[in-house]
């Protein structure tokens, strides 16, 4: 608990630095990641992330320093080279982009691991900490490193703000963008460069292996909540920042714990929750909407059958379950549920001998019967569909027709008295 208070009170200047760094990283990677996601270049981000490792190691071997600017330079070079390789392979061979990405990713990462092992075995004193680049270690960063990371992140944010509308058009419709004279090739190059930079900026805090998740997962989660690009970017930033600050906290409390996996776990949790619960698009809200509709159909069908029974048996008001199920076959679990809902809504009265419609229930039953028969009339008269084919269709449509459409139907059909089966349409 004390460590938690220490962490959030930001009294320790080192913690303050780390948190600011993580926030900037979250902002830059989520922003650029949203565009990568919308361009369907998620895998490209992964290829870049894995391919910066050999660059970092080479820079370390060549310049014998842990200065982050130097390592970033190395990361940038090989990250870029990997994208060039993917482009060359897809352009000049029969291999498709996903294969090319898979190939390049594993070759570059393999070389990176090779170089890393070489550095470790050479026993170079300064190498301590270099393997943090695999999975990240936010707490182990020097204030200088965090400054570097912050500057790179800020640069990315400024460039994206400057070219926001161009990047938006490029992501939505590149062919059209080119036709309007926008320098599409240059802009795409810029966007790819920024992706490489965003990945490179995160290698120390999150690590190369998991940086791709920092780019793509926040955007994927945000897409579930909004259909507005600005809001989507804002939400991805929120998710990424939340994930990375929590990751930094874990790394602060236990310095054996790598940051990257925690960041990714947190962001992935947010993504899973979004997929499940986001309004409208989430799996569970969708299921609930569907379930509500099924229940509505069930209620309306029972009301309609009760109304039919009243029509057939003038004067009789109470009908047994048997009467109702012989009118319309229903599972017992269904009609039990249906009657429970209907009595709760005071549309149906339950008495010892069975069920009867209340006044409101009768109005409802009449309305559904009316819509059903009007729709049958519409199909036979206006669309010339055979009378024996229209019932099934009306069974489905009767539950969705609004009062407005009903009025239009009545107007269009000139308030008919009987339906195609010579049944009276009740008004």
């Amino acid at each position, binding site marked *: 608990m004390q460590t938690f208070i220490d962490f959030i009170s930001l009294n320790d200047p080192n913690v303050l630095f780390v948190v600011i760094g993580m926030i900037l990283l979250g902002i830059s990677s989520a922003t650029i990641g949203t565009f990568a996601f*919308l361009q*369907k270049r998620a895998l490209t981000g992964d290829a870049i992330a894995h391919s910066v490792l050999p660059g970092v190691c080479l820079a370390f071997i060549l310049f014998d320093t842990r200065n982050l600017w130097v390592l970033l330079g190395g990361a940038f070079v090989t990250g870029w080279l990997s994208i060039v390789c993917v482009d060359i392979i897809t352009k000049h061979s029969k291999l498709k982009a996903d294969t090319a990405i898979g190939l390049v990713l594993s070759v570059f990462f393999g070389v990176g691991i090779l170089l890393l092992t070489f550095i470790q075995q050479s026993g170079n004193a300064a190498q301590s900490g270099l393997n943090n680049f695999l999975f990240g270690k936010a707490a182990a960063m020097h204030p200088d490193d965090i400054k570097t990371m912050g500057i790179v992140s800020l640069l990315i944010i400024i460039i994206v703000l*400057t*070219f926001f*509308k*161009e990047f*938006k*058009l490029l*992501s*939505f*419709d590149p*062919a*059209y*963008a*080119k*036709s*309007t*004279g*926008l320098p599409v090739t240059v802009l795409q190059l810029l966007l790819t460069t920024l992706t490489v930079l965003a990945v490179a900026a995160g290698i120390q805090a999150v690590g190369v292996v998991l940086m791709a998740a920092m780019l793509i997962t926040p955007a994927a989660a945000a*897409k579930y909540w*909004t*259909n*507005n*690009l600005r*809001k*989507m970017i804002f939400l991805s930033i929120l998710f990424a920042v939340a994930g990375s600050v929590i990751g930094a906290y874990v790394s602060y409390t236990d310095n054996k714990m790598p940051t990257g996996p925690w960041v990714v776990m947190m962001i992935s949790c947010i993504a899973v929750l979004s997929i499940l619960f986001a309004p409208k698009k989430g799996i569970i809200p969708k299921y609930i909407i569907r379930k509500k509709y099924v229940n509505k159909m069930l209620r309306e069908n029972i009301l309609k059958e009760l109304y039919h029974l009243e029509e057939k048996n003038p004067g009789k008001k109470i009908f047994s379950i048997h009467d109702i199920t012989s009118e319309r076959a229903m599972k017992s679990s269904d009609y039990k549920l249906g009657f429970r809902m209907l009595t709760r809504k005071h549309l149906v009265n339950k008495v010892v001998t069975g069920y009867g419609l209340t006044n409101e229930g009768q109005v409802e039953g009449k309305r559904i019967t009316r819509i059903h028969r009007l729709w049958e009339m519409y199909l036979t008269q206006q669309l010339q569909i055979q009378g024996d084919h229209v019932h099934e269709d009306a069974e489905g449509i009767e539950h969705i027709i609004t009062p407005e459409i009903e009025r239009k139907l009545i107007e269009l059909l000139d308030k008919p008295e009987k339906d195609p089966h010579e049944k009276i349409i009740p008004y």
Partner: protein
Amino acid sequence: MQIPAIEVHDVTVSYNRKPALWGIDFAVPEGKLVGIIGPNGAGKSTMIKAMMDLNKLDSGYIKLFGKDIQDVRDRVAYVPQRGSVDWDFPASVLDVVLMGRYGKKGLFKRIQKSDKEMALACLEKVNMLPYINRQISQLSGGQQQRVFIARSLAQEADLYFMDEPFAGIDATTEKTIFDLLLKMRAEGKTILVVHHDLQSAYLYFDWIILLNTQLIASGPKEEIFVPEYLQKTYGGKIDLLTKVGEMLGELQVPPREK
């Protein structure tokens, strides 16, 4: 002689070495409503993309208003095929139409109120005003098409390239678009429309380009709608040309010695 709106001279374009267009020559005068007609795979879309420099030419040249496309970009507008983009993109109808202003604005300039008013006026022309704030993922096919056309109108161009604007849309949209095309022609705009339905083509256009990898015919519709040309366009591909084209694709050699 007046400079034609479009001049295409000896143009060959190939995909993966296999020619999609072969030695195309034609010119279109200004102010015409032009239909590019031909069967599937005839190279119709390739043709208009080539005119906007979206496809590389293997041979020949294309002049718009007597100039290179790069010099007249601001006079040219493009309506891509509806299916060429992902409509699940997070944007509203107004957002998409505003994209039509980006080219005019250039880099670094922000969208202003006047651009918004312009976009709204364009949306009105295609009867889409009630939908300005709707998410594009919720539009029907016909509405998507009208949004794309409104976006091209926002470019205030003189020459319009439309790729299959009549494909898979409802009757109301079809009428809206056709009426709009007539109005645009009356304003002196030149409009090239890729179209695959022969029946409606005669009704819609006043200038026809018949295409099937090679140019079959180009001119006023009365001269072009003759059985001989139509037979040539639709009566199966020209055997020898197809065969040689496939050979180029297999051998991976360019169609011209360059």
